[in-house]
């Protein structure tokens, strides 16, 4: 049995050498436990941290998740995190020991000024050397502008990316919401402001009602829908974004659960992939996808994954 060489799925994006093209999605992945389970250096392209905010956040009341059998889950975690100082001081050096793969720090804030302050704190921290890029989670409401979601405003996205670029030389990947009529204006704005790539898609808004209690299961009523059920939605958005922005780097995420999904997402135009919710159903998913992707490439006579990227758009 022949498989493609290890370098066949290596990617260099924004100057960062990713040893594999599949990363974890933010918030679905404890690097320490998964490194124990998987030996991440052999199968993971990089670690994306859980989103950190400037200050600690306690998150939302329980229950925070709903299993949706067969199709995925809803979550309403509420960005529980210990805050930037703790993440920089405690978590980043720990993650650096988990497979020696690039680390992308996911950040969120509630105003452009807060984003800038976070970037400055990251730049000033001795553990900055472990961080290769920032993923800018644009899901928060902008408290300074009446609660408008950052991710739904091209102007606000441009403002944040431009501001961050002035504070940090780290590559910025803008994680965008699909809960808009079209993601293209947001992606165009992020790229024009200097983002190194677009992460598409974040979770899709969804809800669940318990027909016995006659109430919404999640205390906050709606949550983020993720898992295999949103894969066609994610694929649609990545295809659309790549058509509109053919030179932009797209990191494809949303419902990738098997090798067929991963390959299709590459063909839609993604240069890197992230896998999130499937980690819960299958903690060995990274090693399996890595092996199956290499096998597919060998079977198809593909020497490097770039031959797959955007193939469906040709």
């Amino acid at each position, binding site marked *: 049995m022949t498989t493609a060489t290890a370098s066949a799925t290596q990617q260099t994006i924004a100057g960062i050498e990713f040893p594999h093209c599949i990363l974890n999605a933010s*918030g*679905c*992945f*404890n690097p*320490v*436990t*998964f490194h*124990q*389970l*998987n030996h991440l250096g052999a199968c993971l392209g990089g670690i994306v941290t*859980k989103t950190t905010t400037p200050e*600690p*956040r*306690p*998150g939302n009341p*329980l*229950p*925070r*998740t709903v*299993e*949706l*059998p*067969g*199709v*995925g*889950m809803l*979550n309403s*975690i509420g960005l*529980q995190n*210990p805050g930037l100082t703790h993440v920089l001081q*405690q978590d980043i050096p720990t993650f650096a020991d988990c497979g020696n793969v690039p680390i992308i720090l996911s950040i969120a804030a509630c105003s452009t000024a807060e984003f800038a302050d976070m970037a400055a704190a990251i730049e000033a921290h001795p553990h900055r050397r472990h961080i290769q890029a920032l993923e800018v989670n644009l899901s928060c409401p902008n408290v300074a502008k009446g609660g408008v979601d950052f991710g739904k405003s091209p102007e606000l996205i441009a403002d944040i990316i431009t501001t961050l670029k002035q504070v940090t030389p780290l590559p910025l990947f803008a994680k965008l919401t699909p809960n808009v009529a079209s993601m293209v204006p947001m992606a165009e704005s992020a790229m024009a402001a200097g983002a190194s790539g677009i992460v598409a898609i974040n979770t899709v808004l969804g809800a669940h009602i318990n027909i016995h209690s006659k109430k919404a299961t999640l205390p906050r009523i709606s949550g983020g829908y993720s*898992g*295999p*059920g949103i894969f066609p939605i994610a694929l649609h958005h990545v295809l659309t974004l790549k058509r509109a922005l053919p030179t932009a780097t797209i990191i494809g995420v949303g419902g990738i*659960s*098997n090798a067929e999904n991963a390959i299709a997402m590459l063909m839609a135009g993604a240069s890197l992939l992230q896998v999130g*919710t*499937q*980690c*819960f*159903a*299958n*903690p*060995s998913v990274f090693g399996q996808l890595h092996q199956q992707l290499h096998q597919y490439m060998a079977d198809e006579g593909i020497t490097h994954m770039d031959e797959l990227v955007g193939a469906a758009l040709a």
Partner: protein
Amino acid sequence: MPAAPVCTAPNTPLPTDTLCCILSNVQVGPTLWIMRLLPQHHAATGQAASGFTCHPGQFVMVGLPETSGVPSFSFRRPMSVYQTHDDGSLSIFYKVHGRGTRLFSELTAGNTLALTGPLGNTLPQDAPPESTLLVGGGIGIAPLVCWASRHLSPSPTRLVYGVHSQADIGISDAIESIFTKEHTLICTDDGSTGFNGNVVAGLTKNPQLTQGITHVLICGPMPMMRATWQFCQTNLPDANVYVSLEEHMPCGTGSCSGCVVDVIDEPLPVKSCQVGPVFLASRLQWATTSVTAGSNA
């Protein structure tokens, strides 16, 4: 400040994610089953080192079987380790009360399941058996039996076990083989056997069971654990009381923050799958601890 695990044992093995062969899946009550699992590679090679090494109180995340051979998304189900065996296999004791556990009950010897573990911290290994009281409710008995089975036989440990009815005991043979009659109190809601009432009523009526007790280990439904902790605060104020939480756990790996509990002096809720599932009862913020907690069905 990260929350320190209250009782992580030395030599706690690292978890693995492995495909397991079901050695047996036996019904032991109307809705109760015991499933014994052996890592498939271990079954093939017979290498002792590749079997399960678990400490009492730890749990495993068990994947649901694929139906019709088609992968289908599901959370894995957290299951306390009930028994470990010399051949490297482990057993779980489970109640069918939802889609996942129903699928488990339909499996037979020779079927396979994915399993991640062992996970979580442990019940205190240094609690003296002769002055320890175990209080179990329903399938919450599983980690307590596992703990007691690691000690002297017959165990000098006292056991109070609450179930709805005699048929819900499921593991009478194991209880009788580990614990002496004088040290065992079965409590049934319907009075079909043993003491007619819940575990707190049973403890109240049988003060000899709490004499000289220095450690109490509790596992069961949250209302039962809450009531038992309140009993201990009044009647065993100096005892070290531990609870093993059966929170809903989507991942079990410390990844999702879906199973958090509030702990005194911790600024943020802590992940019960990672910091727990065993906590000192005195450290839990009982006022905000979920009353709807229960293992994934």
